[in-house]
């Protein structure tokens, strides 16, 4: 049993680590709430005394904000949805069936995870140009889907394996067809896994900057990461503005994360242990 002083020491250590990890978020939020004059002051200002929401209003009313937000949401959610469908279709046979070519496919998925995004840039650009997809949202959607698919397949495979096969067999014995089994047994049990897996795709696509910058030459077709970079100009950085924009930009990801955090952990573990 732990003594009182040991528990105190552990709690203190836990709180220090929590503070260290919380600090940048805290700093982002407080800077966003400061007046421009207070931001660029040399006073020691760990605790802000004056607050304003001006930075948020400026950020949201910047021209194009809603367009960029919509673009980002369409591209990200679209890519995640497509990757989930294709990934689930591939994960089921990978987890449950024996067929020749399995080994090759597994290798393909693993190697695909190694590819650095920046490396495939030129051929991707050429493909999109030849398909007349530059300056359109589908070009980004396709790229993000492709980049998140290997991870999606890999994690979903772990989740499918996590479902006891006996449950599916029992439903079969009860006269369910194969599709019925999938729809009534497998899919509901996979729910948390699908949500957890989609988080990774969401964050990857939501964050992507380079492809968005180059594929979308038309300013009005940009996504949020590019919008975020527009707060820095040759004349300097609007720190209050960029912090407020960062908070807004981080919110969807944060909310999504908070909702699925528990399932996420269970998911990564399932994927790994079943190796």
């Amino acid at each position, binding site marked *: 049993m*732990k003594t009182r002083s040991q528990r105190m020491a552990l709690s203190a*250590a*836990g*709180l220090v*680590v*929590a*503070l260290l*990890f*919380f600090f*940048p*978020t805290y*700093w982002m939020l407080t800077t966003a709430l400061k007046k421009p004059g207070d931001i*660029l002051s*040399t006073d*020691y*200002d760990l605790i802000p005394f004056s607050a304003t929401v001006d930075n948020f209003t400026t950020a949201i009313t910047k021209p194009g904000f809603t367009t960029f937000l919509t673009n980002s949401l369409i591209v990200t959610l679209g890519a995640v949805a497509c990757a989930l469908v*294709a*990934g689930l*279709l*591939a994960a*089921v*046979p*990978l987890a449950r*069936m024996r*067929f020749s070519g399995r*080994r090759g*496919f*597994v*290798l393909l998925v*693993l190697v*695909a995870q*190694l590819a*650095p995004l*920046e*490396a495939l*840039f*030129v*051929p*991707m650009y050429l*493909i999109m140009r030849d398909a007349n997809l530059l300056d359109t949202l589908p070009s980004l959607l396709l790229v993000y*889907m*492709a980049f998140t698919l*290997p991870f999606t397949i890999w994690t979903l495979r772990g989740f499918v394996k996590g479902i006891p*096969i006996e449950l*599916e*067999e029992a439903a079969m014995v009860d006269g369910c067809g194969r599709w019925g089994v999938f729809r009534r047994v497998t899919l509901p049990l996979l729910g948390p896994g699908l949500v957890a897996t989609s988080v990774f795709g969401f964050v990857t696509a939501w*964050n992507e*900057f*380079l492809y968005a910058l180059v594929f979308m030459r038309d300013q009005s077709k940009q996504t949020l990461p590019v919008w*975020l970079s527009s707060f820095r100009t040759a004349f300097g950085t609007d*720190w209050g503005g960029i*912090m407020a924009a*960062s908070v807004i*930009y981080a919110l969807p990801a944060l909310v999504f*994360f*908070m909702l699925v955090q528990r399932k996420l952990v269970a998911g*990564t*573990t399932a994927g*790994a242990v079943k*190796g």
Partner: protein
Amino acid sequence: MTAPTVNPLRPAEAPPRAARPQRRFTAQRAAPYLMLAPAVVILVALLGWPALQVLGISFRRLDLGELIRGEIVWVGFDNYREVLSDPEFWVIGLRTVLFTGACVLATVGIGLGIAVLMRHLDAPVRIALQVALVLAWATPIIATTTVFQWMFDQQYGILNKTLVALGFDGFAGYSWFTSGVSTLSVIGLLILWQAVPFVAFTLYAGLLGASKDLYEAASIDGATPLQAFRAVSWPAVRPLLTMVTFLSVLWDFKVFTQIWALKQGGPDGESTTLPVLLYLKGISGSHFGVASAVAVLMLLILVGVTWRYMRLLVRSQETEL
């Protein structure tokens, strides 16, 4: 799952051919391929084909002129010769490997420490810690990078202000980005801040998987905390540790956005890593052939580093069913 159960979803164990109509049999055999088809099409068309093209381009001279004219100029191994004969490449390559190694070691080490700590914390403190970790994890890369830049700002950064307030007057107006080592340290911190939560949560989940009884048994046997860790916790987290190390190697080796956004690989290229070199040669320099050679070399290094683990994974796939 070793018991030879009758599994209707598994064609290999289907009843003998003669017992079933031929049509059904072929449909069953085709099922996995049909289900894999969309993924294969996407992977081959959008990753495999471009990857092959990168390999092809690495043997061509492809600058902006050739790209616009659609010319194909084969130069053999010239690009590789150019990259490999540049001493700068070896410096950058070594730096990338060392940087990745340091980041991975720190991430996994700190992550494991936090996971063990979480297991010993009382609920309120543990939840506070978990919320802080999730916030760090979920904040998008670009937002995080900007916040770090702001915290480390020469004039108005909170870090310098705090150091001065603590009496270290030398840090007034101190720039953290004058040397490559210091710049890379800031980038490393930034990567740690975002990568540790994933590792900590995953390993914590693994630790929870080790049953409480085992810890109790260990404590009855009079095991010291260290002995209990080695006997009970270690076996539970070991496979997970391998996985998070593998993923961290992949992610940290390929880090680009953070490095580029912070100082564009500066000062004087001292924080340039292979992905930054790739960007400089390719996208900003328009030497796509040379950039492709760098990309191929990068992939070779990654395959070399992760080869053993990938072989293990593929083999376990074969024996598992």
